[in-house]
Structure formats: C-alpha cells, structure tokens
C-alpha cells in the first residue's frame, strides 16, 4: 500500500492525508425516515399502479382454452387401455370436442399440458446426454453415464437418444378440426416447425454427421429408447428433415419443464389459410388424439391448451394483480408513513432546530 513510498524525516510514518485513507470519501448518506422515503413510496406506488393497470388490460385481451382430455369423451377408453402397460404397443385414438365462444385473435398457440409430471426431478433431469444430442459420434455409441440406466438396452446396444428424459417423451399426437357451421370439418393447419428456440435447433441439437448416409444408417447400431415405438430417425414421418435429434417435439420435450404442471408447445396456428387468417373463429372444434401417453402411474392429467399470447407471455393474471396489490400495499404504507410523519416526523424536525 503505502509502503512503496520511502519517506524520510521525522514524520516518516505519518499517514497520508487522503480522503480514502482517512475515511473521508465524499458520501451520500440517506436517512431512512418518514419524510425522506415518502416521495419514493408514492412514486413507486404510482409506477406499480400504472404498470399493473396496463398489464391487466393487456391480459384481458388474451384468450385461452384448456381442455383436459385425460378421460374426456371417448378418451376414457384409451385411458383405461393405457392403464395396463402390456397394451403399450396397441394404438388408441379418441376424439374430444369443444367449442369456442369468442374468436381467438392473432397467433394461436397449441400446447399440450401435463399435470403432476415431474420433469424437474434431479435425477430425471440429469438423465440425458447433451453430447449425444449435439451429434457427437462418440456419445452416440457410448452414452454418458448420466443416462444410466437408460444408456444401453438389455443387449448392450447404446440407446439414442439415451436417458430418462428422452425415454419418457410425450407421444400423443393431435389433429385439430374446425366445424364450420354448415360445412365439413376443416383440419386446422398447425405449424410444427420453428416452434423451438433457434439455438436449440441449430446448436444444442444436431444429428450426427451423415456423410451421405441416411439417418437410419447413422443410427444403425443404436436402439431406440425403451418406451419408444419408433426409432429416433422416424419420429416425423411427414417431414424427413424433422427427424433424428433435431425433431422439434423431441427438442421441446428435452427442455425440461420447471414445474410438475406444465405445458409444451405443440404447434402454432398457421394463419396462411384464409379461414384462420385472423386466428381461430368461434365455433365447434374436435381434437383427434392419438392416445399413447399413460398418466395413471403418477396420477397425472393431460390437456390441450389453445391460447393467444401477449407481449409478456400467456394469459396469466398473476403479474398484473401482483403489481396492483403491491402498489396498493405501498400506497397503504405511504399513507401510514404520511400520518407518522405528520404526527411525529415534523415534531422531530422542529426539535432539531
């Protein structure tokens, strides 16, 4: 510190008279008393109030439709069927009908939702191999130990994609139809691509280098996850580029949800069609469900969610309410403080003078 300086003379050890060393740095020392904090209180109350009102209005404009199809309608049968694991190979389809009273304006997002499904369990979350997912050949053949026990099948063939997360992929599929009054049901076009994070699709998830091989050949020496019916390279029969690790459903599933009740994006309404150019019109709808995913084991529920979004997310009234409540709390406290200041603070000030 000051030792580098070699001072001499009788006052050699005299400390430097600098503001820092003498602890005299210019400082702002706010006093937390009623009269000093009052402006801040009122200011914050106003800000929060404004924000809250604005957010509330924004949220009011959104629309959301939730449909629990676990045992709804004809799905009841499928539900029973899935209760028995031995029927896993058999397919089951069912149909659920619903109606929309008020048209959904703008982009409509189609989610599937799961309740009571803990994607956030520590060991479940760790049970994946990101190295495999970015397409490393080495990991493809030798999945990381994190995947255990879902790294190899009984015969020792490496599983791709390995791990519990991929293994438990949500494998129901949906077809949404709109019953236009007086005409046959129109299948609602859903965009199933481009619904993931850009970085996921392009960086985090890559297929192993194909080098003129087909995807099937690349994955030749691997086994599909235990619960999968199809291998990873045949996940999307419609779109060959949507197969392998870059399958968007897989990518979305691999992004583990934070809560046991969650929803995941299934598709976005394609508004290219003139019927749906403005969103979803009011009316009756049906969903044809390829019912595969069993939820009985964990007492879970399945649902589909149709919603429009605001600039700050889905239809969630919590945030505006939180703003409004906070603002009113602040206001209340501000009033209390004002009273306090009126009765005592002023007097204290007088006393100081």
């Amino acid at each position, binding site marked *: 510190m000051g030792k580098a300086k070699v001072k001499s003379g009788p006052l050699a050890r005299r*400390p430097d008279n600098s503001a820092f060393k003498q602890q005299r*740095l210019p400082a*702002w020392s706010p*006093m937390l008393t009623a009269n000093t904090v009052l402006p801040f209180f009122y200011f914050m109350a106003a800000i929060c109030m404004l924000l809250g009102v604005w957010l509330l209005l924004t949220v009011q404009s959104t629309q959301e439709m939730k449909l629990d199809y676990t045992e709804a309608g004809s799905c009841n049968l499928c539900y029973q069927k899935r209760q028995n694991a031995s029927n896993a190979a058999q397919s089951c389809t069912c149909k659920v009908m619903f109606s929309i009273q008020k048209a959904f304006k703008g982009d409509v997002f189609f989610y599937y939702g799961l309740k009571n499904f*803990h994607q956030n369990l520590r060991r479940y979350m760790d049970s994946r191999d990101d190295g495999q997912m970015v397409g490393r050949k080495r990991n493809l053949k030798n999945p990381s130990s994190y995947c255990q026990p879902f790294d190899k099948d009984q015969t020792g063939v490496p599983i791709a994609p390995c791990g*519990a997360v991929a293994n438990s992929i949500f494998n129901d599929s949906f077809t949404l139809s709109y019953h236009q009054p007086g005409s046959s049901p129109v299948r609602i076009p859903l965009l199933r691509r481009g619904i993931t994070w850009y970085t996921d699709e392009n960086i985090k998830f890559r297929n192993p280098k194909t080098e003129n091989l087909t995807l099937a050949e690349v994955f030749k020496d691997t086994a599909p996850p235990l619960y999968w019916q199809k291998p990873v390279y045949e996940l999307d029969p419609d779109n060959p580029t949507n197969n392998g690790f870059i399958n968007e459903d897989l990518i979305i599933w691999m992004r583990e949800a934070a809560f046991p009740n969650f929803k995941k994006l299934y598709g976005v309404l394609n508004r290219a069609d003139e019927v749906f150019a403005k969103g979803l019109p009011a009316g009756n709808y049906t969903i044809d469900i390829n019912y595969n995913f069993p939820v009985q084991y964990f007492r879970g529920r399945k649902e589909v969610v149709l919603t429009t979004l605001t600039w700050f997310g889905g239809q969630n009234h919590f945030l505006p309410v939180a703003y409004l409540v*906070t603002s009113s709390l602040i206001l209340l406290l501000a009033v209390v403080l004002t009273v306090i200041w009126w009765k005592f603070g002023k007097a*204290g000030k007088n006393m100081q003078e």
Partner: protein
Amino acid sequence: MARDSEDPEMTKASKVKRQRKKKTKDNKTRTVHANILYDYSKGEENPNRHYANNKIKTTKYTVLSFLPKNLFEQFHRFANVYFVFIALLNFVPVVNAFQPELALAPVVFILSVTAIKDLWEDYRRHRSDKEINHMDCLVYSRVERRYVEKYWKEVRVGDFIRLRCNEILPADVLLLSSSDPDRLCHIETATLDGETNLKQRQVVRSFFDLDCDFDPLKYNGVIECEKPNNDLNRFRGYILHRSGRRDALYKENLLLRGCTIRNTEEAVGIVIYAGHETKAMLNNNGPRYKRSKLERQMNVDVFWCVIILLVMCLFAAVGHGLWMFQYGDKRPVFDVLSPEGTDLSPIMSAIYLFLTMIIVFQVLIPISLFVSIEIVKICQVYFIHQDMELYDEETDSHLQCRALNITEDLGQMQYIFSDKTGTLTENKMVFRRCTVAGVEYSHDANARRLAMYQEMDSEEEECTSHGGTLPRRDSVTSHQSARVVLRSQSTKSHRRTGSRAEAKRASILSKHTAFSSPMEKDITPDPQLLDKVNECSSQMDFMRFHSQPMSQLPSDLSDIIDFFIALTICNTVVVSSPNQPRHKVRMRFELKSPVKTIEDFIKRFTPSRLTSGSNNSSSSSLITNRSSNKGCSSMLSSPSAESTLTKLDEERQHGSLPHAFGPVPPYGYDRNAWNLEEGELRYEAESPDEAALVYAAKAYKCSLVGRLPDQVTVELPHLGKLSFELLHTLGFDSTRKRMSVVVRHPLTDQITVYTKGADSVIMDLIKPPDTGNSKGKRQKKIVNRTQNYLNLYAADGLRTLCIAKKILSKEQYACWLQHHLEAETAIQGREGLLFESALRLETNLQLLGATGIEDRLQDGVPETIASLRKAGLQIWVLTGDKQETAVNIAYACKLLDPEEEILTLNADSQEACALLLEESLHYIQAKFLCSSADQTAKAFHGHFAPFDIYPSSSPSSSSHAAPFMVHRLGLVIDGRTLAYALDKSLEDKFLAVARSCRSVLCCRSTPLQKSMVVKLVRNKLKVMTLAIGDGANDVSMIQVADVGVGISGQEGMQAVMASDFALPRFRYLQKLLLVHGHWCYSRLANMILYFFYKNAMFVALIFWYQFYCGFSGSAMIDQWYLIFFNLMFSAFPQLITGTLDKDVSAETLQQLPQLYVNGQNSEEYKPYMFWMNMIDAFYQSLICFFIPYFAYADSDVDLFTWGTPITTLALFTILVHLGIETKTWTWMNWLSIAFSIALFFTVALCYNASCPTCYSPSNPYWTMQRLLQDPLFYLLCVITPVAALLPRYFYRACQGTLFPSPVQVGRQLDKLPAETRRNILSLSRVKVGSPLSPKPPFLSLNKPSPKGCNKKDQRSFPSSKTSQGPVSQTDNQSRRSPLGPTDSEKGLSDIYTLVPSEIDTLPYTKDAPPLSEEPQPPSTKDSECPDKTLETSNLSLSSWITSTPLHTQTDSVQLNLPHNGDSQCVKYTRNSEERLQSDHTVHPAQRTEQVAEQSLHTTL
C-alpha cells in the same frame, strides 16, 4: 536467596548427569564447554553439538512441506473440513448434486487464497531470517588464532565471540572480558524490553582480575547453567575451572541476544545459548489469537445455521421419502431407477437425498464469511493504522494493531482498566517544587514554564515538532531494529524492517537519552532558593579557603546544600557525554589508597569474631557470594566498600584529613577531561524520577558530572567540582521504598548517608527531635512543616519524595559495614539480612526537605476520561502509586469528581475487609435505595441514562443476579485491602460494591493484583474489559483483558509487546474506541448479519422449490450461480460496505460518546436480530420465489429459463437490501454494486453462450440471452425486489421516525449544516457536562434522568407519563425539551453558586472537624519496629493529614477501621445542612463525602 541454596543442587545434578551421560536431555542444566578445546572437524566429540546453533528459522514451511503442512493447518479450521467434506460428497454418484469438479471450486479457491497468503508471509519471514542469519560477528578461530568474521548462523554454543561497540549481540553470551576498566559492559536492551537506558553487565567474577586481554586459548572452564528458558531476568549457573574453583554466574554476566553493546569498546564472551534457545527468541511468542465477542456470537449463529440446514435437509429427505411412497409400487416414468436399474426404496432415497440436500444447501453455511471477515478486518486495521488522528508526531509513531482479529471488540468495551503512571500521565517527571528545611519554594516560574509547554503542545499539532521529539524517535527506531533480531511473528500488522542497514542506522541514531526532553531538563529555578544556594556555596567556598569547619554554616543553608547534594548523588544516574553519546564520561580518579583484599581487611579490621569462625576458604567464598547481591549497584559498591574500610582504617591511624580541603578539588585529575560543556552532559537514568531530580539540582548549578563505581563527582557553584567517595549504595527496592547512598563528604570528610524515599517511609525514620534544645525544636518544626507541604503536594497530584541525611561517625559506619558485609556474604537468608542491614543504616535520619515531582497528565486525559465515561465505560484505575497521589491524579484527570462521594477502603485483615465491604454495601443500599427504586421505574424505557446502562438495556447482562445501579460514587482501595477483597470469599461483595461505584481506584496494587482484578471483573460480570498500560507491570493485566492496549511510551516495549493495540498516547483511546471501535463493530456486525441473511435467503429459494420437484434436490438455480453467487456475484458490495460504511461521522461519534453504548449493548447484532434476519430472509425468498413462480406457472417455461430470473432477482434483492442497510454511499459502494451486477450478467452471458455440452448435467445454453429479450423478465425485476424489500424499508423508515436509535439521531445530526450541528452539540455538551443531569436532554433521545428523589418535584417530571408507550413518550420529550435545559441550568447555577464557596474554604490545613468526631484510631499494637518514635501528635497528623483535602465537611462518610481490627467502627456522619431535610434524599449537589481514612502504612 534461593540462588545459594540451589548451587549445591546443581552440582549434584551435574554429578548425576555424568553418571548417565546418555540422558543429558533429561537434565535440568546445560553444560557448555568452549569449542576451542575441541577440534572442529570432529564434530561428534564436541559436547556442545546437541545444542541449537545460531541459525534461526522462523519460517513454518519448507518448499516440500508447504502443501501438506499448510493444508493440514487449514484443516484445523472446522469450516474448511466441512466444505471439503461437502465437495467430496459430490464425488459419490448417488448423492452428487453438482459437477464434482465444480463443487471443489469454492473450497479450492478459499484454501488457495489462504495458502498464498501464508506462503507470502512465510517468504518474508524467510527473507528476514536470511538477513539476520547473515549478519557478521567476530568468532575466535582456533586454527587462525584470532577472531575471524563469521555469519551469525555459524556461531555455535561454546564459541568465543568478540563484540565491539554498537554491535548487536548474535546470541546469549556470557561476558568474560570487557575493555571497560571496571570490567563492565553496557548494553541497551531496547529491543528486548524497550528500555532505552543502559544496563550494566559485569564480567564473570573469575575473569574480573585479568588485566591483560582475555585469551580464549587459556580458557579452560566448564559452564553449567540452566536449560534455555524465557525468563529475561534470570540466569543461574556456575563456571567450573580446571583448578576446581567454582564461580557462580548471574544474570549480570549474561548478555542477551538482540541487545546492543554500548559504551564499551570491546567485549569478549562465550556463547551459552544460541539461535532459538536464546532468551530473546524464547520470549518471542507467536501472534496472539483472540476471538472477539462478535465472533463468538457469530459462531453461535453459525451453529444455528447448521441446525437450520439439518432441519431443512431432514424436511426435504422426509418429504422425498413420502413423495416416493405415494407412488407405491407403480413407479412413474420420470422416476429414474438407480444405475443398476433397480428401484430405490423410499427410505434409501430419503437417506441419499439427505446427503444431496446438504450439498445443495451448503451455501447456508457461509463459506466465504470467514474469508470475508478476515478481509474486512485487515482493511479495518489498515484504516486504523492510517488514521492521522491516531498518529503522534512527537514520536513519529501511530497506532499499531497487533491483534488482527479483535478490532470489533473495541466497540464493545464496558470496563477500562488503566494504569496511571505513563498511561494517564506522560511519565515525564518534571520537577515542580520543593521544600527545604521547612521552607517552601513554590517555583512559580517553573509552573509557568510547564504551563507554557502545555500550550505549546496544543499548538504543535500542526507544526513539526523538534527538540523534544528526538529522544522518543530513537526509541522507536531502535524498536525497529529490535525486530531484526527479535523476529516477531506477528508481522502482518506492523512495520517490519528487516534490513541490516536499517538496524545499523537505528543503532547509530540512538544517541539520545531517555527522560531528557526539554520539558524535563529545563527547570526554571526558584530565585529565592537559587540565591540561597549561591550564598551557601559561596560561604562554603569561603570557609574552605579559610579552613573553617563546615559545621559553622548556618543550619538552614547547610540543609540546602545537603539537599541538593542529595538530589545529585542519591541516585544511580550515569553520565554520558554528548559527543559520544552512550560513552560514559570516563575519568579515572586515582584513588588515594589502593584496593586491598578483603582478607587483608578482615585481618586488620575485624578482630576476633569473624576470623575465629572462618577460615580462608570460607572467606574466599564470601568474595564470590558478595557479588550476588541484588542489582549491580550493590556490586559496584562492594569493591569501594572494601577500599573505604581500608582507608578508614588508615585514616584512623593518621588521624588527619590531609586531602579534605585544597584550592582544587581533591583527587587530582586531568582538567582537560572537563572541557566539555557541562550543560551538555547527558544523564542516563533508570527511572524518570531520578532524572528529574538530577536535572532539578542541575538547574541550581549542582550538577552531576561523573559517576564511577566508587565515586561521584558533583559540580557546585563557587566550589567547583567535588568528588564524593561513594562508599555504599543501597539500591531502591519496593519494600523499603527508599534508596540511600553512603558517601564521604569531601568538604567535611564526614561519612554521610543520603536517603531519598517515599514520604510515608522517610517520615517514620526521622530522628525524633529532641525537644529540649533549639535544634530539636527546629527539627520538629521542619518535620511538621514539611509534612504539611507534602500533603499540599500530594493534593496537587505531585509525586513526593523526602530527602534526608544522616551523619555517621566512622565507628558507627565501621560497625554497620561489618554487619553489612556479614549480611552480604551470608549464605542463608541473605536478602533478609541485607534488608535488616539497610534498616539499621536508614534510621534516625535528619529531614532535609521534600520534592514534588509532577508527573504531568497527558494531553487530553480528563477530556478522554470524561467522554469515555459518557460512553458508558466504567473506568478503573489500577496503579502502584500511593493512595494520596493516586487520588489526586484521579481528581486531576476527572476520574473522581469533587461532586462524588468517595468510599475509601483500607483494611488490614480479612475480617476488617469483609466488614468494610459489608458496611459499604449497606451504605450504598441505604443511600441509594430511593434513587435506585426511582431509576428502576424509569429503566423501562430509559436507554440512555449513562448511569443505568447495564441494568436497563442490555439483555446480555441479564444474567446478572440483580440490576446494579452505578451511582455517583468513587471507590478507593489500597493494595492490601484489595488483596483481601480479591479473596474468594469476599470477591463477590467487593464486586458488588465496586460496580455500584462510578469509578474505582486501586492504589498500591501489584501487577498480579491488577490482572486478578481484571480477571475477576471479566469473569464474574461477564463484561468486555480493556486494559491499558505502558509498563512491564501492566503486562499481566493487558494479557488477561479482552483487549489489551499498550502505550508505547517511555517505559519500554513490554506492554506493547503483550498488547493487542499499541497507542502512542492515552487520549487516542477515545478515537480508537469511540470511532474506530464503533465503526468496526457496527460494520462487522452488520456484515455478519447480512451474510447470514444473504445465504439464508438464497438457500431458501431452493428449499421452496423442493415442494415442486418432489423433494428431489434439484435446483432451479444453475450450479454455477449457486456456487459462485457468494464467492463472486454478491461478495464485493458487502466487503466495501463492511469496510467503509460509517453509520455516524467520526466527529459526531466523538462529540456524542453516548453513541458508544450501541456497541456495548451489542445493539447492532443481538441474538434476536439473527432470527429477525432469518425471518426476513425467508420472507424475501418467498417473494423472490413465488412471484416468478406464479408469473410463470402453467407456462412452458423450462427450469433454467425460470431459475435464472430468480437468481437475478435474488441478486437484485440482496443488493438493494444491502443498499438499505448501507448508511453512507461513496463512489466505491456504487461501483461495487454496479460491478456485481455487471459481473453477474457478464458471467451469465458468457457461461450461457460458451458451450452447449460442457456443463453437464445442466445445460443452460442461451438462457440468459433469451431472458434479456423477454419483457416478463424485466417486469419481474421491477416488482420482486420492491415487494421483497417493502417491509424492511418500511420498518427502517418507521424506526427512523418513531423511535430512532441514538445512532440514527447521530446521523441526523451529521446531516445538519455544520453550524447548526455545532450549536446543538455544544448545547448538549453543556448539558452533558453539567453534573446535575447525567443524561443530557439532547434531542429527542434523552429524558432527564432522575438524579435524586428530591429532584423529582423540582423537575415536575410527570411520572405518570413515563409509563406510556414510546410514541407518547417521544411526544413527551418533544414537549418537554424546552424545559430540559432550564432544569439543568437551574441545577447548574445551583452548583456553581455552591462550588466556589467551597473552593474558597478549601483548607489545606484542615484538621479539626472530622478529628473531633472520630475516635482516635487506637494505635495499640505497635509494630516490632524498634524505633517507633513518632509522637502521638505526629501520628494523628500523619494519619489525618493524608486524607484528601479536596472536600468540605458538609457530609462525610467515615468508613474507618483501626488497623488492629478489633474495634471496627463504621460511622456515617452527616453534618446536615438545611437543604438535606430527609435522610434518604440525595441532594443533587451532593458534596463529596469525606472519607477520613486511616492510612495503615503510616502507622505500621
């Protein structure tokens, strides 16, 4: 006395040793052979080979051992083990929570930071070791037959080394030869004990007579001595010559490592102890480790954190078990099986989870807290070091913090134990006034001069001081050189100067003498006395010319000249010349009769008794034993005594005094030697008193010009230089409390004894005046008058010394000398015999006069004491001084207040003491019953009455059995009574009395008692104690206290070495405690609390999440954030705040000492505060968790996209929380917060962008980048911190308005414009200062405190209101506040009208009133002392007159026990005046109770 008896034992031991050679190490002695006798090449034959060589190595590590040893040491700290354990847990697959390598990061970081610090320190030690090891010295080489230069490290035990002047001793060396004709060697021991005066060391007896140079080749002795030990003041052994002769060795023969040779051209010695076995090194203990109160409290809370952690883990484990259990046998898809593919039972998973949770929640135990605290403390120490106001220009020294880890204790002190001399006072003894032959010379000019110095001191603040600064600076520089050799290990805090060059410079610089500042030297003589001295000496000169006997001189004049001669020679001052400082002025006077052997003397002088019983061998053993007399003074005196006796013998035969008179002073000498300006002579005194007296005498032209072992030369006006033959010196000791010299007066040729000593002792030894003749009457008058003046001096706080003389006839002297020699040579009980011998000589003295030496109070002492006391500190003064002086100094420094009653406890037996204490307690209870009842009523909300601090407002002191009020009482207790009071049976009572008193003064206390008192108070009252002292006698007390403060004054470094803090001045204690202590405490307390809060808040976030993830131990906060959050993201702002935050400015803290109470009561960090903070932390974490939770609930958010905002919010909340708690914002605070946030985002962005696969298992790729595009994130960032901190902010605002703590009021004061503040402060100071209102009615804080019951009605204090809530109370105060001052002013005027009248009537010659009422203390049981000669009148005089005269007789408490302890009488006498109507009221303007005490030592 033990020495002789142990000698034979040692021989026995050595014999035993020879029998079992192998087991030398078990032996209690060490045998040193000269290396010269053995061939160097055959090392294994060298008997000294087992002893440590002189190479010192203070490093802890070697290159190889560093890592294991350092780690081993670090793992002694429990926290480190804990964190390593947790990090290792991560390597267990079933329980791991984080990437194992990452989990190691914080522990490795912390360990490596500490290791690097240790390495650096060790390297510096290594370097300075190397420098020291490579210093040169001269070692005799057998091969070359001469002294050759060798490095210090090559010196070995048994080597002969030659030392030259100003060289530093490389090892402990037995002095075998010295170039000094007196066979002395002077050393400066400043490096060891800081004493700058020279010590004399003597050549070993058997080498004493060697006239030629010492030849190592002829040396053939074997030295047997003690094993190495650390007692600097002890060395015992003997040297066995080949002839079989044994010579004892004493500490006077040993030169210690680290000392510097002075005044001696050359000395040769043999190395006895080397390297680490030297006494200096053995004394050099490592740095002291103390744990501060705050840290103890913190550790308790860390323990609580552990409990909370375990509870949380247990909760999670149970939760997980239940969660698993609910699924039964049907395992859900998301339940991952164990790697083996088997199911884990719920119980097993719960157990595993418990361990996992410990890892996840590890942050709750603040890993960085310990490191942060250390960093903050180092910064605090740095700032304390840098404080200009703690820098003393005069000594160019500033405060040293020697203990690094107890800075915050400074802010929590409750009791201060202070030494007096040198601590409160300057230890600059200044001759102030004197009385000679019953005439007082008031030395008014001198007083004015001293007053001028006082003023100058204050003016000198700005300008560079000079002159007086020099001697002090030397002592400092030589202390630096001390470190070269002493190798103190506590190197962190204070400057180290390892370079040899600097050591040399230091030794060259040390030219100046202790106790010789201009203030001490330049004494303005009293003109009247000066005239008399001149007249006297001119008459003597005249008489000498005319060969008239001196007895014709008028007795008062002869008294005066005797007085000054006594002042000049009755001491052990050594004279040195200025040109060669530290070179003794050396003039050998040829003694008239050469020294003859003692055998010769015995033959001639003692006829039958001695010789008949003793043969030659016994007499030769007498010779050796004689030198073992204590102190070198007696050793010096011995040879001269021999010669004197022989001379006496001769002279008796001649019957004439041929040399007594002559035109030139006797004993022809070389006049040229005296060419030196006499004014330039320097006096090397052992004690400041001696120096003061010598300088005083010099002012009267009676100057000491030379001192040799056998003569003292004095220059007198007109008479020129007179040489007094020094026959004997009876050194000062604390039992006799006097010293005497026996000289032959050159003018009268009489053998004269000059005695100087404490008045209480000397007065008893005065020859009872023979009232028959005029001379006797005169003597009696002188005694009485002198006693009066002595009392007057004592009342002025002067140190009094009486000077007496006695003329011995030659026969008497011969007779005494014979006995004395017998005593000196006695083998059994020599000390006792010597004591008796001294007693025989020092009787029937003739009183010459008395001196009053002022030990000036240090600057600012009264102010400091006053403000420390206002700060709620109890100040006890423990001094070795006598009661009167101590009491008066206590008055002078405002420790005792004239307004106070003084309880004086003097008892001489256990029972008496018990009774006294009992009575005092009753008295206190009776007297203060009413007021204390009153006070307890008020104590409900009375935080700020300075006098009821402890009972009312500290829960920490609630352990006390009963609330004790501190009354306006002073307690004075003497050492003897203290010894009784400290007995197990009485200590509780003593404490009960003492703690009721505002100030306690323990006089005549020994160092041990001092430490016992401190220990007692500390252990029994459970309070924080600070001991401050400057001398070796304070060391024990300094070590015992919680905080030891040493004054680096003139008395040396021993106290400083033992202390935790070293101050240059007492007054700096004020700023050290009130400002730095307060700051350190409040900063650290707040930081620790904040740390707990921060960790709890952060961990709780994860805990809440467990409810949503099946208690599986997963964390939404990425492992990186989790691990580095504490270490990096939130670390800097708290460090800055912990280092720089100032709750109140330094000025206000000093002007309002009441704010210190804050720390005393631990108000910043109370146990409940920890829990409040925990609750707040849990609340905030709830907010920080659930607002994002609900905001994202039911959405498609993934774990880290949700967890990262939470981390961010937590960071914001934590920083804003810190912002609320930060009192002052400097740019560094802003910067640190900005830096923290920037660092977090930078790290997050880089981390999230760097690699999509590297941080398996978590994969937060691009999360932060996405978040920054998400409006929701910003919306959360606004609402969450606001909602989380709302309660705390609101609470702070309310508290600041409704019930501001005094600290907050202090801050409000800071905010006011400077002028307004000054007005308020001065107002409050006036009020504070007024004795009536101990509680200053200052701002809204204070309510007028009840001082007494009768005051209540005057004040119209509405007692009904006092029980109302705080709100209305504030109201009260606000309305009452204009009333307050008038009240106190009323009281003030009340007092001030009374006080002057008292002062007017202050009678120094007070006598009658208390005496008449008091039964004469029966002096029935006289001591065995044969010459108990005091008349009864004298007795009463001496016993009464010593009581403090500063009070009137309005109201007196006489706690009085006659010393025989049979008829204790305790009497409360009240001369009631009209204003004391009722018995139980205490008038506010209570006079000091007069305590008429029987001073026991005077009657013994």
